[in-house]
C-alpha cells in the first residue's frame, strides 16, 4: 500500500512537527539574533547617532551649526590654531567642540 510522504517531510521540517513551546523558543531566539545583528552594525552604534561624541569627530563645524544652531560662544585657540565652540542653548543638549585650523572637529564633549 502506498503511503503519503507528506507527514514524514513535515516531521523533517523545523516547525511543523514541533510542539508549540519549542516553536516559541526558536522564534524568540531568532528575534534576539536579529536584534543583536542590527545593534552591532557600526553605522547604528555610533556613526549615525547625532547624540554621541564619536559621531561629531571628523565633521566640519558647519555641520554642527546646521544641527545645533549657532554657537553660544566661540573662542579661537591660540595654542592650536583651532577654535573652541560651545553650544549651550537652554532646554537643549549642550555640546563643546574643539576644531583644528581647518574647522574639522577634533574633540567633542556632550555636557550632561
Amino acid at each position, binding site marked *: 500500500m502506498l503511503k503519503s510522504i507528506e507527514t514524514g517531510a513535515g516531521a523533517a521540517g523545523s516547525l511543523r512537527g514541533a510542539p508549540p513551546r519549542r516553536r516559541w523558543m526558536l522564534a524568540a531566539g531568532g528575534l534576539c539574533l536579529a536584534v543583536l545583528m542590527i545593534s552591532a552594525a557600526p553605522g547604528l552604534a555610533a556613526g549615525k547617532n547625532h547624540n554621541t561624541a564619536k559621531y561629531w569627530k571628523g565633521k566640519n*563645524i*558647519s555641520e*554642527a*551649526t546646521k544641527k545645533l544652531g*549657532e*554657537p*553660544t*560662544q*566661540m*573662542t*579661537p*585657540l*591660540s*595654542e592650536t*590654531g*583651532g*577654535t*573652541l*565652540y*560651545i*553650544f*549651550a*542653548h*537652554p532646554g537643549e543638549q*549642550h555640546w*563643546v567642540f*574643539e576644531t*583644528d*585650523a*581647518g*574647522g*574639522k572637529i577634533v*574633540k567633542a*564633549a556632550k*555636557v550632561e
Partner: protein
Amino acid sequence: MMRRWRIQAIALALVCAALAAPPGSRPARAQSGTPVQLWVDTRTGQVFIRPGAHRVRLSMPGVITEDQLNRQVEEKVEQKTQALQSQISQQQSVNASLAQQNAALNQQVAQMKPAWTNFADNFMNKFSLGTLWYFDYAMYTHPSFGPQFLTQINQPGPGNEIFNSFDLSRAYLNFLFTPTKDITVRVTPNVYRAIGSASNDKVGASGAWGTSLDGNLGYRLKYSYVQFNTLFDSIKSMKGTTIKLGVLPNGWVPWEEDLYGYRFVNLTPWNYYSLASGQAGIAIAGPIKSGEKTYVDYELGVYNNSSFHAFEQTNTKETIDRVTIYPFGALWRFDGLGISGLYNYGYGNVTPDLANIPAALKGPQSHIERLAALVAYTTETWQLAGEFDYGHNAFNVGNMFSGSGPGDAFGIPTCVTTPAATSEAACTGAGGTVVHYPGWYDVTTLSQALLNNGRAAEEGFAFFGHYHVPNTPLTVFGMFNWWQPNIHVDKNPFDFQRWVVGVAYQYNEYLRFALDTQNVHYYHSQFAFPLAEALSFNNKAVYSPIAKANGAITGPVFPDMHSIFLNVEFSY
C-alpha cells in the same frame, strides 16, 4: 452534370456582364456598400435576385465581398503593425540597454582620476588653512600713558581727548601640515605695525626719497614649529602629549587667552604687563587623563630670553612652565574647577659682556621672574576666575609705556630749556641748560629708577569672567586688574587698576562682535614724590633743578585713561 455545367455557364456570364458593365455603374455600387447577391434555384438552375424557396446563395469563386476585403486588409495591416511594434519594442530594449551601458561607462570615466588628482586629494586632507582676524574702532575719551590695550595699538598721550582710530590688531594665517599622524608642522604669520621714523634716502646729487616705514602694517612670523603628536600614545593616561620645537606659543599666555576667551578685546594679565605669547624653544605639553576626563594639563618649556620678535643675545635661557589641576576632572578644555600655576624664570636679553658691567639700572640685565596662581571655574555658560601675580624685574619702563609714554622715555625731550652755563643739570642730561619747565623729564627719570633698578618686585591681582545671557547671542564679560609695579615703593605713583567691561555678540560660528569700555585708573591722588626716596632707588639719577629745588618730583601720577571699543573677531 448538365445542370452543374449550366450553373457554371450562367455564373460566368454574370461575371462577364459585371465586368463589362459601364465604369460609371461600379462606383455607384461601391458607394452603396452592398454587393450584388444572387440566388439560384437548385431544382431549375434559375438565377434570382431575391432569396426564395429552394434557392441558395450563388457563390462565385474569385469574387469577394467588401467586408471580406476590408477584413483581409485589416488583418494584413494589423500583422504589419504588430511586426513593426515588435521591431520598435526590440529597438527600444536595445536602446535602453545601450543607454544603461553608456551610463555605466560614463560613471567609470567619471571615477577615473589621474594620479595627480589622488595625490592632491591626499595632500589637501593633510593640510589645513585657517585665519584669525581682529579689527576694532577705538575712541579714547581720555587718552593717557600706559601699556598697550592690544598689540599693534597705540594712542597719543594726555590732552588728546576723543582721539579715535580703526585698528587692525591681528591677521593670523594658520598653516598646518600633517604629513603623518605623528607630526604636525605649523606656520603662523601675523600682522605688525612698523613704528620708527627711518631716515630718508638721498638719491642722486640733489634728490631724495622719503621713508615709507613708519606706520606700515607688515607681516612677520608669529609661530613656526614642528610638533610630535604620538610619542606618548602608548601610555594611555598620557595620550595626546606633544613635544614642540620651533617658535612656539608658550605655556601660559596663549593658554590663558584661550581660557579667558576675549583676547580680541583685551590682553590677559601677564601679557598686558610684559610676557610675550611666543618664544623660540622646545616644550612638552599634554594631559594626564583617567577615562574620558583630564585631571592634569601641563606645558613645560625652555625658550630664548628674547621674544619671537627679537634677537636672542644671552648665554642663558628661560623656562616657562604651567600646570593645571582639575580636581574633579575636565570633560572638555577648561571644564569645571581648574587650579593653575605659572613659573617663569629668565634673564634680560643682553649679551654676557654687557650683563656683567656694573650699572645703576640693572633692570635690563637682571634676572626676570614671574609667578601666577589662578583659580577658575568654567561651565559652558559662565566663568569666574581669580589670579594672583608676582614678579621680579618683570615690568620695566618699556612695558609701562608700550601703548603710549612720555617722549623722554623714548629719548625725545619734553622739557623746555634755554642754553646757559649756570645750570647744574638739565632735563636733557647735558650740562649748561636752564630748565623752565621739566615736562615729563623728572617723571620719566623716576619711572626708570623705580622700575628698572634690578630689584623691583611686582604684585597684582586679577579677576575675569563672563556670563552668557540665555536665549540670546549675547555674553557679558569683564576683567579687572590691580597692578603694583614695585611693591618696595611706599607710594608708587605708577600703581594702577585696569578694568574692562563689555558685551559680546556671537553672530555665527565665524564672527563675533564686542562693545566694551577699557580703562586705566592711576588710583593714587596726585602728590609730590620725595626726591630722597627717588634717589634711594637710583642714586645716579639726574633730576631737574626744579625737582632739586623742591626736594620732590611734582605731578608724578598720570591722568586716567578711558576708552570705548567696538571689536570684531573673525575666525575660520
